[in-house]
């Protein structure tokens, strides 16, 4: 076997982070109830789920910050606590406070020194959108700026794999989009990203693959299109005088609910339902039909986890 003298990047598609049957309990609370998750080099994986789903626990196990009660964790084929694994990983965690009496430049300088091949400081500053803030004390930064420093600290070691735990939580829409561009730029440069989020839009915009986590279990996994296809229907939106209960009983309607003044109907047979609606309510207006999105998939998947799991078992 030839020894590679430099520190080459992992081959695309190679598994670089793995949870196998990972269980984590905190006292009576089961945070993860047997999770299998593989991250392959070059992909952007979004772990999507509501608060308390176990997303942060999964990230912390992969980072070697806790040990699973059962199952295994591998990072670059090693124990995640090995320095050889850690030098290839950059993490952005939910940190409530960073020491406030150091400057942005100083924080980056120190964290960079832990890595064998860090990025040059100006590059980190530019990539994280911190130009002009280098000499500001961390304590004097705004919330969005602090978030960017945390991103810079994940970035500065020039890692192969990024763990971003709720990277855009609490950011305004504009900053969030800026962040997405940065994350995409990393992915385009061949880096691997695992991010957790409870924003569907974020997962849809960024991820090659979505892992839907709910109550410590993986409910679904696939490309955003595949996840959406699991619902496999259309969403009809319209303004109508018909009561929502009556609409819900129409043949082919899977679900009907109010959306502001409008009614939203989920159905696999949109044409038939629209015909029926128009026949019953000639005054119907504002008709719109679109493919079911991630949000519908998310609701239908997390809304009744028992049935989803049951059907999974039948399929297996």
């Amino acid at each position, binding site marked *: 076997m030839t*020894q*590679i003298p430099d*520190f080459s990047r*992992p081959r695309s598609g190679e598994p670089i982070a793995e949870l196998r049957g990972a269980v984590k309990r*905190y006292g009576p609370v089961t945070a993860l109830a047997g999770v299998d998750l593989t991250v392959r080099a070059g992909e952007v994986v979004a772990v999507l789920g509501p608060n308390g789903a176990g997303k942060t626990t999964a990230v912390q196990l992969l980072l070697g910050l806790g040990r699973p009660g059962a199952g295994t964790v591998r990072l670059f084929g090693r124990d995640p606590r090995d320095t050889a694994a850690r030098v290839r990983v950059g993490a952005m965690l939910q940190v409530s406070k960073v020491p406030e009496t150091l400057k942005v430049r100083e924080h980056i300088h120190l964290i960079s*020194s832990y890595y064998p091949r860090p990025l040059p400081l100006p590059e980190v500053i530019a990539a994280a959108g911190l130009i002009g803030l280098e000499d500001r004390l961390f304590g004097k930064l705004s919330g969005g700026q602090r978030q960017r420093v945390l991103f810079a600290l994940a970035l500065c070691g020039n890692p192969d794999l990024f763990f971003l735990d709720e990277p855009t939580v609490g950011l305004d829409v504009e900053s969030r989009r800026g962040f997405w561009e940065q994350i995409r730029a990393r992915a385009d440069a061949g880096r691997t990203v695992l991010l957790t989020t409870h924003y569907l839009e974020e997962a849809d915009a960024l991820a090659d693959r979505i892992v839907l986590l709910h109550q410590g279990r993986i409910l679904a996994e696939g490309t955003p299109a595949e996840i959406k296809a699991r619902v496999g229907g259309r969403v009809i939106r319209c303004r109508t005088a018909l009561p929502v209960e009556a609409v819900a009983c129409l043949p082919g309607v899977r679900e009907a609910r109010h959306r502001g003044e409008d009614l939203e109907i989920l159905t696999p047979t949109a044409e038939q339902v629209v015909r029926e609606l128009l026949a019953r309510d000639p005054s119907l207006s504002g008709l719109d039909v679109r493919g079911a999105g991630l949000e519908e998939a998310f609701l239908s998947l997390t809304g009744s986890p028992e049935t989803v799991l049951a059907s999974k078992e039948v399929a297996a």
Partner: protein
Amino acid sequence: MSAIQFPARNLWRIYALESRYEILKMLRLPMYVIPTVTFPLVFYLLFGVAMNRGSSGVGTYMMAAYGAFGVMNAALFGFGVGVAVERGQGWMLFKRATPMPPLLWIFGRLTMCLLFSMVVVGLLFCVGALAGGVRLPLSSWFFLSGVLIAGALPFAACGLAIGCWAGPNSAPAIINLAALPTAFASGMWFPIQMLPKLVQRIAEFLPPYHYAQLALSRVGMNRGELEVGRSLTVMALFTIASLVLAWIGWKRDEGKTFG
């Protein structure tokens, strides 16, 4: 996966940066600098200089005793509060996810504590020589400063243990509650001979007492027969116990992450 060789990291450089930034971080924190540097000085000026009527013995005793008090506080607060706060706010969790060598981080913080200890001791020596009427042979100045500053090590270990267990809000209170009465009972504020007999008996079980006695022995003002061996043993056991506690606390954090 093929064998991958990383260029070796420069551990000296990491240590130097850890130290530099620990020092800068604390220098910019008046909450730490002001009490750490001024309390021993003010107490010494008050009890060792102003209330001292021309006895160079009191001035010398108080200089050694407040030196011990100052170093103990610099180390306990520097480690204890700093570690507890950074742990409680998730910053340590982040640092543990990086390839930071934990020992170098501890050495960096220790360097900061040693530096502050030197400043405290240096300032006290100046005041002692200029205003406290302290006259000592050069060798005594030298050995006294050595014992005082070496005292930062056991109390830094104790601070680390407290920092690994206490919450960010309770740590300062815990340290104050532990440090102030024991410092008093150990003869760091007033000569121990002036304290009630019961307190003098209790003092023999307190690490700060043995630290103060070791310091006082360098100026020939220790109580009774000097038992350097016993005092050193107490300090060594105290250090080891603190490090073990800190280690358990550090490991415990591993199983406690939540999300």
